[in-house]
């Protein structure tokens, strides 16, 4: 399909292979780096990013420049850049696409960030199912090093910086910044509550900038073309830049699309992703990954941008759009999400550890036809309590849960009335075998009953 919108991040997209360094350079790649090291001060790069209003693409939308300003100005010692490529949220696969399209765009972005925050080392944190990305980034980092773009005395200046890849062994919570720092440090990756930000005290207790990979990939364009150019890419008044939208679920052409921030959801689904498959009717959309609410179709004309979404009580998140049709049971879908969050919780704090299995249990009853009227209020209360958890994990889980009752409570009640799933789903079965005292399907590696030593 011909896409007539500006392609900045995916402009070097080739079928089935990543762009080479020569292809990247032919399109202006590494020009931003050459125009920066030894020619601009780190403060000038930071100023460009602040003026461009680059907001984090990992879900929270925090302005990247402001995060970088969090490093104490008088700090002397090592500083780190951690590139978050954990991306384990259901529906999200944009970072994998980006690395496999243009690894040098990512590498140049990381180097520019390091220059701006005066970091000497970068760590790419990569989840296990993205092993091919890890290998690709290692190979292309070596190529960049051979070209004098990475390593000691970059482009003959006194700026030195290098990248290495840290392979995760896989848990969703590792995507949270403080948990990711702990994971790299060989500690159990549960998030840190409050107290100093990672930009003050991060990896090995040194200032560390943790940014999503897509966020950093925007830097070469901003530095080369300027903040006004970057802002002009967006279609909404408050937006800046383009965005990678991962579209999945019931659409004709699921995939990753680079579109201006502010593109209406209706256009993304019906024009770029090909609309609904024949015979299907859209019922709900999760607009930004599993930690964002279900939206009914009345919101389809919302601009996909942080501020318009927030004003409408929605969340932009990672802009990973999941589309549900009229034949999909949203109680079942929510139950599936709660299964995911329950299994992936690090279990460190009570609202998450206790709250998630509790709401999962109640949803299982409703989906299985054993739900009662009072369960609705019990779930809502529990979801509200989950908002006061240690980190954003349980509050994120509460988003689809509360929106199910806000917009689709009639569907929940239909389960109660019919005493079965009106979509014909069988009663939910626990996945995995009982192991010791834990709930039947808790834990990543359930052992068969006959081998269970407990």
């Amino acid at each position, binding site marked *: 399909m011909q896409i007539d919108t500006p392609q900045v991040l995916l402009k070097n997209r080739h079928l089935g292979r990543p762009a080479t360094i020569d292809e990247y350079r032919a399109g202006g790649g590494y020009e931003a780096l050459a125009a920066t090291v030894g020619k601009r001060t780190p403060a000038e790069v930071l100023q460009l990013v602040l003026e461009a209003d680059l907001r984090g693409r990992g879900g929270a939308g925090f302005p990247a420049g402001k995060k970088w300003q969090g490093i104490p100005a008088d700090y002397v010692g090592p500083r780190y850049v951690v590139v978050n490529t954990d991306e384990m949220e*259901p529906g999200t696969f944009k970072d994998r696409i980006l690395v496999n399209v243009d690894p040098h765009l990512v590498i140049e972005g990381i180097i520019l960030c390091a220059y701006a925050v005066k970091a000497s080392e970068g760590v790419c944190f990569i989840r296990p199912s993205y092993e091919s990305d890890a290998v690709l980034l290692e190979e292309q980092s070596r190529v960049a090093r051979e070209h004098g773009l990475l390593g000691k005395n970059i482009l003959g200046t006194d700026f030195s910086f290098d990248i290495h890849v840290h392979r995760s062994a896989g848990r969703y919570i590792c995507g949270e910044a403080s948990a990711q720092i702990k994971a790299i440090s*060989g500690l159990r990756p549960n998030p840190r509550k409050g107290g100093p930000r990672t930009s003050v005290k991060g990896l090995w207790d040194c200032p560390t900038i943790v940014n999503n990979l897509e966020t950093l990939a925007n830097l070469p364009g901003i530095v080369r073309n300027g903040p006004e150019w970057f802002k002009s890419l967006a279609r909404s008044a408050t937006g800046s830049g383009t965005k990678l939208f991962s579209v999945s679920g019931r659409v004709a052409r699921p995939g990753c699309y680079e579109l201006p921030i502010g593109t209406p959801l209706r256009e993304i689904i019906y024009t770029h992703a090909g609309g609904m498959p024949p015979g299907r009717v859209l019922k709900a959309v999760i607009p930004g990954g599993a930690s964002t609410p279900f939206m009914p179709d009345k919101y389809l004309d919302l601009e996909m941008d942080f501020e318009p979404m927030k004003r409408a009580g929605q969340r932009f998140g990672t802009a990973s759009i999941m589309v549900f049709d009229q034949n999909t049971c949203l109680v079942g879908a929510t139950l599936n999400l709660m299964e995911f969050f329950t299994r992936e919780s690090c279990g460190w704090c009570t609202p998450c550890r206790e709250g998630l299995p509790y709401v999962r249990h109640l949803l299982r009853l409703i989906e299985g036809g054993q739900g009662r009227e009072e369960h609705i209020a019990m779930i809502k209360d529990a979801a509200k309590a989950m908002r006061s958890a240690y980190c954003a994990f349980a509050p994120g889980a509460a988003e689809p849960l509360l929106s199910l009752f806000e917009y689709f409570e009639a569907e929940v009640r239909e389960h109660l009335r019919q005493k079965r799933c009106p979509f014909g789903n069988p009663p939910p079965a626990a996945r995995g075998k009982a192991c010791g005292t834990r709930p039947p399907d808790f834990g990543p590696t*359930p052992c068969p009953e006959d081998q269970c030593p407990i």
Partner: protein
Amino acid sequence: MPLPDDLVAQIQHRIDTAGHPREAAVDVMYALQRHYGYLCDEAMHYASRVLGMTTLELESLATFYDYLYRRPVGRYVIHVCDSVVCWMFHQDSIFDYLCRTLGVPPGGTTEDGLFTVLPAACIGNCHNAPTMLVNGRFYDRLTPERIDAALAELRQSTEEPVRCK
């Protein structure tokens, strides 16, 4: 059974090039897991010794992460994505088909030691749902026929992994 010299050298190199030995913990466990087939006690004690970490510290990692196995697993670990997108495309029946075909419960290993079936958090391949990951390789848009073909292909391999005593 002593570890092969090249594996010892590889592990030591990884530790030496890490900013801090602890940073290499997962990589060292991965290397040992590839050798033994899973993280047996012998592997955990060795990792503890070379990393300078207690076995308890390493245990807290090995039992936390999805892709480290403290129990024997098959030569091919099949991570079946059970995210909401794959679920929407009848993931449950895909999962059941795999378990039924292989004759194992979820989490179980086939008697010949070839396959272990595990549910997995989203594996980042949602536009090709339903999907599974087998020893790091994606299998897309699964149907019973495609699963049969994938299993037949995997059965062709004759490589025998080393196991703990």
